[in-house]
């Protein structure tokens, strides 16, 4: 079996465009939350969001641009990832593309609601546009697995490379702030009024965000042959479905994804040195996730550093797990573990080491990145520090 490595990462978030700015602000505890600008949030209980900047040089198109915002965010992230990887796309052909998203390029559609007519743009339009823009001629996938779509995209790219369909692939996730999602999460009473507080006893819910994350995956053979700097290794992944409820999480299903990831990668639970949590800040998710951690890691669960960056960048839906995978790469590279911000009182139902409020030095060998979605979709990605043997 081929070893699959990461040679480039790129991101656009509310706390930074580009991984260096994002990472610096993440460790500094900065957040991107502000009164929402891009959509009409009048009359809604929560009016805060983590939006990517508007109206400044280099900013992506405003919402409502039919062919614009999501594609532009992802293109910017992919540009950065490819530049870092140094991959010669013409030489590496065919290069694959796997895009995860929840709402796709929804801006044009929302302008015309409730009448839609010809304004519906298929989610795959982002993938087609990106493939054309970057001349990526390998397998192209659009995966609409909602809040776990980023992990699914990375898993698909991993499988494509293992199957020999390509020697390199770009995997990523993107979502822009949408009126449907913003109004919808408000309707579920799943949004916080002032801030997102994952694992806190008094947490109220999510703050929505937008952004994009992209990773360049290659076979290790290809990366080594061209002398690329390897950032991390994608060891493997696990997927499961709760088959329980359209929105409510099931700790057993979450645990099964983690077990499957560990089983397929032959990594022991005690070898995991950090967990990137889904950590949305909703009462149900965080409690279920803590229970799942206990099921998988047993007595060790309270001692494994686990943090959620959603307190700082919001819940970016389809982009979330792609950005969190990039965060894991940075953890492996930089030896710093990001904090879970806004924690005041740890929920006793979440007996975890959530790295409260201050980042911490740590250089784990293997990390686990979890993402869960509506429809009971559970995903767990195992990344590791690159070692040649």
């Amino acid at each position, binding site marked *: 079996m081929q070893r699959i490595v990461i040679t480039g990462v790129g991101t656009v978030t509310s706390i930074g465009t580009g991984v260096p700015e994002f990472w610096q602000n993440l460790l500094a505890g900065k957040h991107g939350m502000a009164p929402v600008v891009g959509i*009409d949030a*009048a*009359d*809604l209980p929560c009016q805060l969001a983590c939006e990517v900047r508007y109206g400044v040089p280099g900013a992506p198109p405003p919402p409502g641009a039919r062919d614009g915002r999501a594609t532009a965010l992802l293109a910017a992230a992919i540009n950065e990832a490819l530049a870092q990887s140094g991959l010669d796309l013409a030489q590496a052909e*065919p290069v694959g593309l796997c895009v995860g998203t*929840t*709402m*796709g390029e929804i801006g044009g*559609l929302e302008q015309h*609601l*409730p009448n*839609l*007519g*010809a304004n*519906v743009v*298929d*989610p*795959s339009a982002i*993938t*087609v546009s990106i493939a054309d823009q970057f001349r990526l*001629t390998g*397998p*192209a*996938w*659009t*995966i*609409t*697995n*909602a809040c776990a779509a980023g992990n699914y995209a990375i898993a*698909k790219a991993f*499988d494509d490379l*293992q*199957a020999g369909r390509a020697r390199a692939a770009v995997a990523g996730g993107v979502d822009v702030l949408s009126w*449907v*999602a913003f*109004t*919808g*999460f*408000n*309707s*579920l*009473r799943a949004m916080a009024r002032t801030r997102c507080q994952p694992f806190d006893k008094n947490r109220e819910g999510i703050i929505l965000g937008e952004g994009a994350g992209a990773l360049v995956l290659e076979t290790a053979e290809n990366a080594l042959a061209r002398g690329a700097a390897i950032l991390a290794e994608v060891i493997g992944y696990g*997927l*499961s*479905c*709760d*088959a*329980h*409820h*359209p*929105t409510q999480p099931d700790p057993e*299903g979450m645990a*099964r994804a983690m077990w*499957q990831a560990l089983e*397929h990668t032959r990594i022991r639970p005690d070898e995991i040195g950090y967990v990137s949590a889904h950590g949305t800040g909703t009462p149900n998710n965080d409690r279920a996730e803590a229970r799942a951690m206990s099921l998988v890691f047993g007595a060790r669960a309270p001692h494994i550093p686990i943090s959620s960056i959603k307190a700082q960048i919001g819940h970016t839906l389809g982009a979330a797990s792609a950005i969190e995978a990039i965060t894991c790469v940075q953890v492996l590279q930089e030896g710093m573990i990001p904090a879970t911000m806004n924690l005041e009182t740890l929920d006793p139902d979440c007996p975890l080491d959530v790295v409260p409020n201050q980042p911490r030095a740590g250089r784990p060998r293997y990390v686990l990145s979890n993402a869960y*979605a*509506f*429809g*009971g*979709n559970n995903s767990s990605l195992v990344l590791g520090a690159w070692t040649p043997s």
Partner: protein
Amino acid sequence: MDRVIITGCGAVSAGGFGSDRLFRGELPEQRQVPPISADTTPAAKGLRRLPLPAQWASLASSEALTAAGGVADNHRAGVIVGTNRSSVPPIRTFAADAEANGARLVNPTLFPETVMNAVAGHVAIRFQLRGPTATFSAGRLTGFQALLGAMDLLQTRRLAQALVCGVEPGRPDRADATAYLPGQGAGAVLLERADEAVGQPLAQVEAICQLRTGAAVWDGLRTLDLPRPDEVICPGRLLPAPPWPASDPWEWTGDADGASTLFAVIAGLRSLANGRKRVWVVDTDQRDVAVLVLSAVP
């Protein structure tokens, strides 16, 4: 490639509920799915509260699973959905409710249906399928991507059984196009690893692939060195005339986007049952061509 077989199929189309109704011949002009309720079929019991795409996918899946005899291990059985627009009717409903009642008072049960993977979630819940579940979107080749994605999960042993479903609500924005036959519905097939199969094989999947050919579809397919077919099933009219006997399921179902490929696969199963030894299901989006090779099981 490890051996994969198809053991069940199901469909909801303009002909109604049932894969046999795909080929009735006389279909309504608009090719719309007729109302299906628990009064017309017990399989529809409990589905009324769901959006139509989820209802259709559940019904088609029900037929496929029943034909196959169910699943052996529900932790190794997953749902793979191909759809471009199943979220559109729920988004429209959500927006209309917000307009009628105000954004603050919109019905909270509507929002979860607006995400594209809601259909897969409902099918998984209804039939308690707990293996990996995924939703793909790829324009005209959506159904093929769902089949390809399922094959990958079967080949890597992450699944023993994959329920593949293509579902589309139709495209009323194109209803006036003279060259366009609007269609809607859901098609489903159950793929199983032959070494872990529960059901009896209807066909074997010999090959499935997608490649960039542009307009040179048949020349491109020749480079793959696939075994020759007795019949080619080509949904739609974008393909040039194939060099083998061909049939077009759009004649019966219209263009149902993500569901079209699954309808074509069901047409292929019917051809094999009627004596063909090997069929190809082919489609193109003018950039890529995708082909599924099905063969009769001895």
